[in-house]
């Protein structure tokens, strides 16, 4: 729950709600970017961020993202994060 995972912002989906789409280890997920926004949201596209429970919490550079992903992968955290995201999607669709 506390580790967070790097994701790349690929699209701004709802400017008013500060929502974007991030690609996390090949999976696309809605994330809130309020904590890393410091200008027009469009400028975030292509940027990497540490994603934590659906919020982009800190910007990181691409190298850092790659290193962190490799470490999380070893820790089994990447898989866990992806499973939690899938569980979240299932909960929304009532598949529980």
């Amino acid at each position: 729950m506390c580790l967070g995972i790097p994701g790349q912002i690929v699209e701004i989906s709802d400017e008013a709600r500060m929502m974007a789409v991030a690609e996390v280890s090949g999976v696309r997920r809605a994330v809130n970017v309020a904590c890393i926004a410091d200008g027009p949201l469009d400028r975030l596209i292509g940027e990497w961020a540490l994603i934590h429970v659906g919020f982009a919490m800190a910007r990181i550079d691409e190298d850092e993202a790659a290193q962190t992903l490799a470490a999380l992968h070893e820790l089994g955290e990447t898989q866990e994060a992806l499973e939690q995201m899938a569980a979240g999607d299932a909960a929304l669709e009532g598949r529980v």
Partner: protein
Amino acid sequence: MKFASEFRDPKLARALLQAIAEKADAIGATREKPVHIMEICGGHTHSIFRYGLDKLIHEGVEFIHGPGCPVCVLPRARVDECIELAERPEVIFTTFGDAMRVPGSTKSLIQAKADGADIRMVYSPLDALELARRNPDREVVFFGLGFETTTPSTALAIQQAAREGLANFSVFCNHITVPEPIKALLDDPYMMLEGFIGPGHVSMVIGFHPYDFIAQDYGKPIVVAGFEPTDLLQSVLMVLTQIEAGQARVENQYGRVVPEHGNSVSIAAINDVYEKRPSFEWRGLGEIDASGMRIRDAYRAYDAEEKFGIGYAVGRREVPEVEGCACGQVMTGRIKPTQCPQFGKGCTPETALGALMVSSEGACAAYWQYGGARTAAE
């Protein structure tokens, strides 16, 4: 167990282990008289065991696992209250998966779900908000749990709910803070800690000045660390270097993610939505002053305790710990998990008595899964 040669940067890992060994020798740390370094964060505990750092490091350095796992420190009374909320027919109870197996006094959330309660594991509080939008005739309660890393996300979700006027969303708030339990540990006359590894992602939110008191008032070094094995080794080296020089400062090893003053948007959201509770109960540690957050009056409509008349809104209930369970002593570093009389007997991942055995960041789970530290092998 891992070997330093398997690390992504084995040369760096070996060099760090060597430098740590030299420093440990220089300050006279031995297996019999080790330097005790507490890693506060459960994420670090998990990394230490996963990479076998406890076994690779010089035997004069002993890791003490701190209370930094929010699932582990959740008292049974709060789990019971979660279950009561979840079992209300109008409620959809949403939670992070980590909390599902934590034992309450009669059952865990996973058992309550099997018994028919509508409990859904979500990835984010935003999923809970979306469920509230899609189910206007139900009450969606989000189980807000975690340290400063997750507190802003719940705060931002509550602000969003308020902007939309979502009337069927509320948060059962169990957010807690890192500095206060550390202060409680340092005030404990039996505590023997020579230094701290500070939590990286909590610090990403609050910066590192909230730890100034550890260095200034208690004279202990603290180094905020990242989560990779070399981050942790480098941080241990930084702590030992301070000890050798007779210094006590707050240092930041994780500068690539942790800004000195934290994240201003997160801090503003936390301050807008939450205030400190006078005190909060921790499993195994008892009441700690100003260590928990509650929702401010301005957002009262989103406070599940107020809405459903439960928890601190009506008074704290006393639920004793299980007989013989030593969770509190493990979380304060007084004993190792294997020294708990219940470890591997009454308490296994399948029959857990304490959350430390079921949380992915729990020390007992780590000992169980990775075979434990040097002391466990003895």
